[in-house]
């Protein structure tokens, strides 16, 4: 199996809205994680199961460590859907703090109101 990141790249872009290279890369990582999650969990189970022979567990460890970096869930970073920024992204709205402010003040976020007391 080749270790190229391009193997996780779809032929045609399946995103709408704001798009930049780093956002697409993160999207590809997310797809790779989704595809390989059962395999990774199975290997993790083999590694954690102390009733299995040591050899099997060591092989599973090796196999897991040799999987592509894109299949690792820790590679995923929550990015702003509206601007691609990776910092200060609200998980509930999927946008960063500045986009949140702009959209909230424009009344585009239902239920969000500027605090005043």
């Amino acid at each position, binding site marked *: 199996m080749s270790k190229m990141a391009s193997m996780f790249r779809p032929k045609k*872009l*399946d*995103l*709408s*809205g704001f798009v930049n290279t780093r*956002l697409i890369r*993160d*999207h590809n990582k*997310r*797809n790779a*994680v*989704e*595809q390989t*999650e*059962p395999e990774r*969990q199975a290997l*993790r*189970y*083999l*590694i*954690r*199961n*102390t*009733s299995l022979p040591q050899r099997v567990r060591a092989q599973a460890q090796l196999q897991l460590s040799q999987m592509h970096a894109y299949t690792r*869930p820790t590679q*995923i970073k*929550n*990015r702003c*859907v509206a601007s691609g920024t990776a910092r200060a992204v609200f998980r509930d709205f*999927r946008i960063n703090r500045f986009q949140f402010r702009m959209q909230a003040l424009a009344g585009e976020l239902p239920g969000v109101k500027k605090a005043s007391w």
Partner: protein
Amino acid sequence: MSQPRILELVKTQCRIFSLNFNPQRLRLGNKILRQRLRGPALAAWYPKKDVSFRDLQNTYKPLGLTTFDEAEDDREEAIQIAKLRGKGRPKKKRTAAESKSAKKKK
């Protein structure tokens, strides 16, 4: 209750609620199997592609219907104006010789 009886009770309890019976508390990795898959939720972070004007155009053009894309029309008009002013894009260099001669002129 006696010790074997309690064990028997726990065993039955585990069978009924489909839990793992593990009185020796061995590390069997079952917590991995209990975890839910996070992949679908993670992959759904960015908005998926929806229907664009171009998709509509591609579906209706073969049926003989005419479509009008205002943004595309504006763009083509702007290009025409730029060309008339001599501000259009330079001609594509197809061969190595052509691109060389273009550089020498400088």
